[in-house]
């Protein structure tokens, strides 16, 4: 309520009702009155000189947003009030604000919410602006074709290798996404390294549906996907890929304990005794500091034959239609933010993987491996097949229909398959049933 008061009060200030400001902070009735005044002012046709922008990041990691907000204010004179809200209460606060008609003008959100999705501004102009080169695979549109959110950044699954072990074994690995390897070639190379260096395992694989999806996409499957009626199924390529994955859990290529008993694959890789680790870009920052006893590298995601990954939004920026004036100002700010030069600065300062192509951001990592990893991810993402963004868009569409996948049954069902409690086909049947039950139709 106070936030709204501040935002609207400065607009009122221009109208000469500055004395209402202290009242607005304390008295809810006054706030209501002020809301009404704010609404009325939209007819003036002017552009709001202040904006409220909500984010939720760990303190200290909001550097990029702070920098952009300061730069915007300097360039345009529009005051942007940046509010960093703790993650635990963020969703609730947005819901409450929607119900109290006091949403911010712009927000970076983890996901859309049916409670307020009808208040969102259409961001098609920004998304479709060719100069921005926003990767359309990772945009979600509603049924009428409106773009309701644009990712602030993206995250992607990817492969890490123990470079020292590869070099010790004298085995080559690809370095450019233009000339990557297949999963078969990768496993063959990793097994060779494992045998020659007496490492414990060839690969550890995050126990995560997202990581499995990425691998299935690369092997030509669509994993669990819905037809036009919203009914889920799996294709033959998915069945084959999942069977292959279950087979790798033989306690030589991969340790069974990760997917069946909750052992930590990242710790295993960091021990230096595992040849490769299938995880994602979010590990890079930590590894740039934590891995010191061997050299590591990010390598291109395998393509068999599909060059893909599972790409998700790190966050989504949205604009709210509080009134025509505020909505116009919100859209102007977001248009400015996604201009390549500004957006590059945001990505560099916050360490984001950009959703825009061709930016070449320069990150402040000291570690060469980390710099190379980010370069590789940035080069790879534009090459990825559209399937890479399927799940990210599907999630948004479920939300717009008022549904959500609270529990992905993948990990439990495949854990049972690896443990020999059921076949991989039966596991997929159960996973499909879980999807149909939660988000089907």
């Amino acid at each position, binding site marked *: 309520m106070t936030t709204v008061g501040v935002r609207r009060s400065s607009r009122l200030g221009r109208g000469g009702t500055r004395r209402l400001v202290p009242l607005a902070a304390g008295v809810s009735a006054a706030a209501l009155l002020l809301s009404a005044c704010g609404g009325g002012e939209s007819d003036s046709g002017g552009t709001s000189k202040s904006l409220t922008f909500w984010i939720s990041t760990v303190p200290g990691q909001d550097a990029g947003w702070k920098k952009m907000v300061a730069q915007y204010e300097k360039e345009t004179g529009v005051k942007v009030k940046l509010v960093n809200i703790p993650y635990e209460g963020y969703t609730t606060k947005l819901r409450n604000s929607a119900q109290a008609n006091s949403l911010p003008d712009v927000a970076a959100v983890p996901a859309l919410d049916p409670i307020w999705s009808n208040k969102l501004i259409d961001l098609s102009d920004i998304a479709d602006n060719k100069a921005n080169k926003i990767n359309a695979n990772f945009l979600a549109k509603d049924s009428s074709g409106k773009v309701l959110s644009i990712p602030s950044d993206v995250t992607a699954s990817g492969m890490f290798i123990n470079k020292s072990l590869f070099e010790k074994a004298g085995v080559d690995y690809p370095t450019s996404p233009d000339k990557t390897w297949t999963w078969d070639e990768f496993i063959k190379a990793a097994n060779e390294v494992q045998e020659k260096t007496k490492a414990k395992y060839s690969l550890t694989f995050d126990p995560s549906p997202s990581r499995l999806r990425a691998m299935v996409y690369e092997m030509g499957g669509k994993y669990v996907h819905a037809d036009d009626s919203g009914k889920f199924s799996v294709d033959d390529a998915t069945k084959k890929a999942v069977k292959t994955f279950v087979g790798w859990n033989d306690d030589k290529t991969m340790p069974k304990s990760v997917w069946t008993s909750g052992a930590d694959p990242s710790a295993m890789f960091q021990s230096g005794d595992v040849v490769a680790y299938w995880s994602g870009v979010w590990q890079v920052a930590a590894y740039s500091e934590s891995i010191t006893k061997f050299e590591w590298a990010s390598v291109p995601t395998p393509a068999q034959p599909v060059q893909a990954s599972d790409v998700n939004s790190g966050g989504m920026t949205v604009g709210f239609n509080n009134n025509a004036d505020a909505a116009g100002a919100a859209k102007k700010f977001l248009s400015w933010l996604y201009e390549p030069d500004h957006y590059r600065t945001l990505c560099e300062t916050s360490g984001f993987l950009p959703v825009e192509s061709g930016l070449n951001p320069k990150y402040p990592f000291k570690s060469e491996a980390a710099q190379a990893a980010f370069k590789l991810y940035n080069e790879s993402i534009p090459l990825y097949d559209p399937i890479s963004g399927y799940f990210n868009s599907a999630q948004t569409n479920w939300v717009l229909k008022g549904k959500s996948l609270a529990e992905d049954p993948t990990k439990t069902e495949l854990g049972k*398959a690896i443990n020999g409690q059921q076949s991989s086909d039966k596991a997929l049947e159960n996973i499909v049933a879980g999807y149909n039950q939660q988000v089907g139709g």
Partner: protein
Amino acid sequence: MTKRASAVSASPPRRRSKYTLAPLVLIAANVVLFSLFFVWPAVIGLVYSFTNYTGVGAFQFIGLDNYDNLLGDSTFYDALTRTLLYTVLFVPLNFVVSLLAANLVVSKHAKGGSVARVLFFIPWLLSPIVVGVLWRWMFGENFGLVNYVIEKFGGDAVPWQSNADLSLLVVVMASAWAWTGFTMLLFIAAIKNVPVSYYEAASLDGAGPWRQFFSITLPSIAPTSFIVILLNTINAMKEYPVFVALNNGGPGTSNNLLVQYIYETGFKRGQIGYASAASFVLMLILMAVAIIQLIVNRRVENR
């Protein structure tokens, strides 16, 4: 006169209120708390067990369908069987280890008894999650201490996590380790209450330490043993955090005990009604265990 009479007649009720009001107030506080935090949720749980409630929105009454489905649910039976197996393994192991520890620390021949008592007691102070994590470091299949030592001596790594039976065994050992301190304290108190004269008379008759233990100590601490077995059985049937921390009910779902099954069904799959029915089945089993043990104990005491 009238005044006196009224004073006399008024005094007995005042005295009654003095001795009934305070207990009533104190009991009422308990009754309110008990009703609010036990009876009311239990009633809600019982009501949910006859519905198809998913945790959000409205629900419909579906009679005994949940209970009917439970009877045909192999996953529920697997969880129940595993829970019983865990209980059958854990309770005797904990009983024997704790009794042994108690006898050792109270023995007049033992040196450093009080230090040992503290050392045995420390694990009981740890959170079950910490216990799970500690034992995971030791019995981690891939990078655990035990397998490291085995491999150093030329052996093959033991699949402590990916073999369902070994995985259960590790949890049994971890739980017994964690519970030894508390059970040991109960036994120490009981053993110290056994009159020394019994042992003196027995040794005069030529009874050795084993004979004394089986013929004097064990029968004398029977009531404590009964409480220990009852408490441990109930606790074992409700075990959850050690499994989650140690192997997450794995490998796969083979060590999902009843409480984990209820949690996963209710909160992860949103089948609150079905999970409530399973909870009530667990409660009935626990009540049956408690009643059977009470009856057995009463018979033993009356003999």
